């Protein structure tokens, strides 16, 4: 780590894999408004992924466009953090992942929007406004579940405990973002009566292409059509 191209792929893959996971919730959410909300958030993530991967493809100069990068790379070539690829065992796990991701993306995009690369700054300036909505949404659900019934509290706490170790990887490149991230996330958790887990085990490797097997299943589903019918249109 890490060239400018690596950074673009990392950001683009985070957004793409998050979009695919969120899209899987459509028709499975606890209420119809939530189907719509998660599909909307997925669409924002997909929009950012398209812009970032298109740019990465141009920068790479090997003739790969957004589709080639999304559909024709293998798991070992993806640069996303493990957090976004983890299967959503239940709704609370998805919300915990979204909370941690959105809080990180907002800070990261904020910084990039003020950065030297004008094209990346423009992409980030759009995405940062969208991240703020994603963060609000995840924070609202964290409070609703965490400060809800005994059962919802227990499941929200279990989800946060389960996902917490994977948040360390978000700050591999820019460790100084963790402090402002913690301040946002700790406020949300405190408001939701959810205990902030202790730091400890910190799995990583996603940025170098070492993923959990869960990414392979996700990619199989996402890529099968394009691989079976390259260039298909309808």
């Amino acid at each position, binding site marked *: 780590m890490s060239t400018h191209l690596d950074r673009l792929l990392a950001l683009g893959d985070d957004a793409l894999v998050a979009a695919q996971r969120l899209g899987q919730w459509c028709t499975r959410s606890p209420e119809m408004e939530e189907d719509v909300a998660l599909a909307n958030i997925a*669409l924002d993530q997909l*929009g950012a992924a398209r812009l970032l991967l298109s740019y990465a493809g141009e920068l790479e100069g090997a003739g790969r466009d957004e589709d080639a990068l999304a559909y024709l790379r293998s798991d070992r070539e993806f640069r996303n953090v493990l957090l976004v690829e983890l299967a959503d065992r239940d709704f609370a796990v998805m919300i915990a992942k979204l909370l941690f991701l959105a809080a990180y993306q907002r800070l990261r995009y904020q910084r990039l929007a003020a950065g030297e690369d004008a094209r990346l700054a*423009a992409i980030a300036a759009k995405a940062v*406004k*969208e991240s703020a909505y994603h963060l609000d949404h995840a924070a609202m659900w964290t409070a609703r579940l965490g400060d809800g019934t005994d059962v919802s509290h227990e499941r929200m706490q279990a989800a946060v405990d389960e996902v917490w170790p994977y948040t360390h990887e978000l700050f591999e490149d820019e460790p100084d973002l963790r402090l402002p991230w913690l301040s946002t996330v700790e406020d949300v958790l405190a408001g939701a009566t959810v205990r902030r887990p202790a730091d400890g085990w910190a799995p990583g490797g996603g940025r170098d292409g070492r993923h959990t097997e869960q990414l392979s299943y996700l990619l199989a589903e996402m890529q099968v059509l394009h691989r079976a019918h390259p260039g298909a249109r309808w």
Partner: protein
Amino acid sequence: MTARPHTATTPRDVVAAVVDPELQVLSIEDLGVLRAVEMDGAGRIIVTITPTYSGCPAMEMIRADIRTALAGAGYPEVEIVTALAPAWSTDWISESGRTKLSSAGIAPPGRVAGPVPLTLSVKCPRCGSLDTERLSEFGSTACKALWRCRSCHEPFDQVKPL
């Protein structure tokens, strides 16, 4: 340069009249999506547009509609440029656009003041009551939120401030 049909409408007028596919009461000019229409030395029309949301699926359709409208007005050579910066804001929706939204039963967005949007009560576009509640910050399209009026009990869309 090929001859154009004699007409008083400029390429800008033609493009400005293209309707947003997801907010069909608004033109792309009302919405602030249209940034510039220029003609180069060879008579090619260069249209600059900006997306509302990064993943807005209406952009493809808007591009196609711009090409169709310009071709119909005698301008077949068109280049459409997508500019991301400065990022689109609902503050760019024109006053007439806001009025058209209200008339169509869609609450217009509040002004975005500074980095944090102001939370003001949203007026019901049907009965005008301010006693409304937000059901979800995500609505029928990326740019809308879902609200309900406590007075007339009607649900309605709001273009959410961005």
